[in-house]
């Protein structure tokens, strides 16, 4: 590859990634040489500014047609842009949380790492959204995973944090191996790692044996990726890791990492498997491979919703409750994936966006209430309305949205998915009913939190007395989250119109 070819690429398409990469690199070098007493908080603000800059440059790119550089390994199509916006917003909010994070034992000496590792993880997630090749997809995935492992264990002297990181690494390693093994079979069947080329090769698989292998590869990849999504059967790490990890990291895992997981899942599902056939004879030969797989995905989606919502009922630790709730939400999102209706993308995008705001908001409140004492019992919410009415109202909005009560973004998201499940052909009644039933179950634990906040007197021995001080970063994040949750709940068309006018339903997905 000579210089001319290199220069001929439209590098501008990668501008957001370059910005994040640049900021992360500079921060890591400066962190190394900056004097010890320098407050590393400034790094966080620089990182935040970097994310905003990247977001601005990405929005600048929105009008651009689909670009593909580096021999199709990096694609900037509507899909990539739409989901990168979510990833960047999510990471920006998480950065605000991280800025206000003050664990009990302090983490001054490695606070800098915290910020640039977040950026590195974000970079991995963005690469995943944009990659057109299995190799870049895999590298992006691993960049995100490795950063998250370290982030989960960033409180070096805090045993639960260590333990959660260890659990995350071990499970993550196994999941990676599964995914990679599945990918190697797909490569073997097609002889290429380029996603678009695969799309063209796979429909020609003639041999029934090959289709079996394709099926097995599909399951291995799906189960491996379900680790990132925290859906059944690879969901069990989530509660332990969420509980042990520092709260901003938990927010990162449940929002950015999950969104990235869905991005990669959709990419692989629709490009690699999207054109293949379910068999080579009879009806199966006429059936799309994914349609043949629908029942399996539906089963996993149902299992995820049931496990997430039911087990959440038994939890006392607030972060575990939200871990299970995040499992359940991944289940709802899988319903949209299963249905593959004509507006699957809208539904997924909107839901992930709504989930981003309501969940980061909820974690912001959790962080504020739990970080001083390390007491994470659900009782920390007791009497919050008395102690900090605005905080309680904000949390109430998030909870209502998570529960899917009308008037909030969460409701519109669920409605989208629900209508999608019924409007697809064939309609997924069973799945839709499971979704409704588990949503009802979820009211119990969500309203448990509400009851604590509004109907319980505050514990008498509360050290800080009545007032809770909300740091600047956190209050910005809270305001953004509340406003977005309500605005997108009342006027969802703002988001959906933006989506339709700018991304045209991802018509360029397969070009």
């Amino acid at each position, binding site marked *: 590859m000579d210089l001319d070819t290199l220069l001929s690429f439209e590098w501008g398409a990668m501008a957001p990634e370059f910005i994040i990469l640049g900021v992360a690199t500079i921060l890591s070098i400066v962190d190394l040489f900056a004097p010890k007493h320098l407050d590393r908080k400034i790094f966080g603000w620089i990182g935040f500014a970097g994310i905003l800059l990247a977001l601005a440059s990405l929005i600048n790119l929105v009008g651009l047609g689909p670009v593909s550089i580096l021999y199709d390994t990096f694609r900037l199509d509507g899909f990539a842009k739409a989901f990168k916006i979510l990833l960047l917003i999510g990471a920006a909010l998480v950065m605000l949380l991280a800025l206000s994070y003050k664990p009990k034992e302090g983490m001054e000496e490695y606070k800098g790492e915290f910020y640039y590792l977040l950026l590195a993880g974000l970079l991995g997630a963005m690469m995943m959204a944009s990659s057109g090749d299995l190799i870049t997809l895999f590298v992006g995935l691993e960049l995100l995973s490795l950063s998250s492992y370290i982030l989960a264990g960033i409180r070096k002297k805090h045993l639960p944090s260590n333990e959660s990181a*260890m659990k995350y690494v*071990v*499970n993550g390693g*196994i999941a990676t191996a*599964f995914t990679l093994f599945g990918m190697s079979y797909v490569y073997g069947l097609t002889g290429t790692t380029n996603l678009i080329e695969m799309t063209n090769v796979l429909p020609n698989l003639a041999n029934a044996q090959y*289709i079996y292998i394709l*099926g*097995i590869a599909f*399951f291995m990849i799906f*189960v491996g990726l*379900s*680790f990132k999504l925290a859906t*059944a*059967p*690879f969901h*069990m*790490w989530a*509660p*332990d890791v969420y509980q042990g990890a520092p709260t901003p990291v938990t927010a990162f895992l449940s929002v950015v990492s999950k969104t990235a997981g869905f991005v990669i899942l959709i990419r692989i599902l629709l490009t690699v498997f999207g054109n293949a056939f*379910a*068999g080579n004879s009879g*009806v*199966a030969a006429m059936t799309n491979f994914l349609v*043949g797989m629908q*029942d*399996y995905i539906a089963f996993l989606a149902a299992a995820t919703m049931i*496990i997430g919502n*039911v*087990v959440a*009922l038994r939890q006392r630790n607030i972060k575990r409750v939200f871990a299970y709730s995040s499992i359940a939400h991944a289940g709802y999102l899988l319903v949209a994936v299963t249905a593959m209706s004509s*507006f699957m993308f*809208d*539904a997924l995008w909107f839901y992930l966006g709504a989930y981003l705001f309501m969940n980061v908001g909820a974690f912001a409140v959790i962080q504020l209430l739990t970080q001083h004492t390390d007491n994470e019992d659900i009782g920390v919410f007791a009497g919050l309305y008395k102690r900090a009415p605005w905080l309680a*109202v904000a949390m109430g909005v998030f909870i209502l949205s998570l529960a899917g*009560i*009308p*008037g909030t973004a969460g409701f*519109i998201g669920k*409605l989208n998915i629900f*209508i*999608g499940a*019924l*409007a697809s052909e064939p*309609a997924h009644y069973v799945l*839709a*009913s499971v979704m*409704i*039933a588990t949503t*009802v*179950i979820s*009211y119990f634990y969500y*309203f448990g939190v509400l*009851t604590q906040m*509004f*109907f*319980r007197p505050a514990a008498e021995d509360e050290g800080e007395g009545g007032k809770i001080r909300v740091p600047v970063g956190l209050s910005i994040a809270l305001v953004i989250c509340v406003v977005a949750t309500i605005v997108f709940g009342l006027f*969802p*068309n703002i988001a*959906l*119109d933006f989506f339709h006018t700018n991304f045209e339903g991802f018509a360029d997905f397969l070009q």
Partner: protein
Amino acid sequence: MENAWIIPLFPLISFLFLLLFGRRLKENSGYVGMALTFLSLIYSLVVLFDRFNHPTYKAEATWLAIGDVQLTAGFEVNQLNALMLVIVSLVSFLVHTYSKGYMHGDDRFHIFYAYLGLFTFAMLGLVVSPNLLQTYIFWELVGVGSFLLIGFYFYKEEAKAAAKKAFIMTRIGDVGLLIGMILLFWQVGSFEYDAIFLAVEEGAISAGIITLTAILIFIGAVGKSGQFPLHTWLPDAMEGPTPVSALIHAATMVAAGVYLVAALFPLFTASETALMTVAVIGAFTAIFAASIGLVQTDIKRVLAYSTVSQLGYMMLALGSAGYVAGVFHLMTHAFFKALLFLAAGSVIHAVHTQNIEEMGGLWKKLRLTGPLFLIGTLAISGVPLFSGFFSKDEILIAAWTNGNPVLFWLAVIAAFFTAFYMFRLFFMVFTGQSRSEMKNVHESPKVMTVPMIVLGVLAVVAGYFNTPWFGTFLGDWLVEGNEALGHGHTEGPAWIMIVATLVSLLGIFLAWLMYGKKSLQRDWLSSRMPITYNMLYNKYYLDEFYALSVVKTTKGLSVLLSYIEAFVVEGIVKGVAGIVHGLGKTGSKIQSGQVQAYGTVAFVGLAVLVVVYVLAGGYLK
């Protein structure tokens, strides 16, 4: 009328304003709430009178586009909506006023008014909604509002439990509503009432789906309106402050279910089965709840069961194709039941107990509350010339002309029960001697009595809007321009009215014999009117006869029914909850903290998927 959307906004402003500044305003918050709901009331009245002269007005705009599906939001003013607007804003305003006195001295006075504003907003929003989705959204919001209000005394364990129960029980019904709604949407392609009715009329939906969706939507109404078997939350909800009971559990929220069935009436009439279901559930609830009401000793619980029973009446009316009768009773019931609750609140305010066994002889002490309570009792008992008489009469006629004598006689018996237990309540509370030490019993302040007087007047005159004697003005207006709703007035045989009057008088008489007469000085009667005395003496056999046969059996039956309620209905609920909890427990147990177990679960999951895949030949369908 073009600006009717403003009406729900006033209480919303009240809610937001009090949320922001309530703490500073303290008890002055009451005036803010009162002023803003008064504006709603005035505007509602304007809209109602406007509606007399103008056709239905409807405005909407696209709210959400999913794929190529357009969902709209807007508002509509038709006869039913306009009437409901007035009922809701009127009762809400009166309750706002009344609470000024009732909640006086409460620490969280302003929060109470904020919640009232939220609830009123949701309820008014519900009644102007032109489509099912919007209705559903406000429907849920109403649920949230009532959850907050019922749980207002959250330091009481029962109140907390009741709030949760109300929310969850109505939520069970909402699931039915949601599924029915989505099914309708799937069939019609729109949530609009008009589009749905058009599709029903044109036969675009198969009969089976109509029945199914109608029944599913009715399940939602069952939950909200406290119909059997989802009624158990309503009596428990009496843990809330009494003005709340008057607002939510008499006039507005529980009527929302009836309103929903009325608003979707053309859908229901398209299916015989659905109508029949509504009628049967309604009639059964009416008699079931009335019989339980016979043995209750808590003043508010008696009223609660009577509400359940009266709502059953309304459902029976709607199910018997008596659209006008149902809506008419909804209106009269809103007034007299709100009156009864407020009067009960006034009694509780005076004596600080809810147990009627401990009351008695309050007639002389509560000079205003007593007569007002009596008016309410007469109205609900269906005594001629009071509003309840006319509306109940309409319902009975509807049930009779619809050709189902069983339901008709059930309704008649329920009417008898109603008269009996309401007067039992009245006699035990107001007549005779006080059965416990009552100190400082005094009449409530003006701010509480004036709303009651207004309701008292309405409880009498509301019936004259629609009578067989002076013209069926309300009925004719309600069905004007809409064939599907049936006739403004159905002529029924004259004996129905006589029967209705007789059973209610009989009930009152029996109650008097059992609970009123006891306190009469025997020689007072016998000395002055020996003939009457003798007659009464002979009647006494009747009393004993009733006591032995009818009353005993009814009492037994009602005890049995309360057991059914306690064990079967609650049992099913508990069973489901138990299964869910068991599953949760197992799930927690598997979560042992052993990271390798987690990996194993994932691997086993993968293995199962692959094995099923291979065995199924790769293709499940």
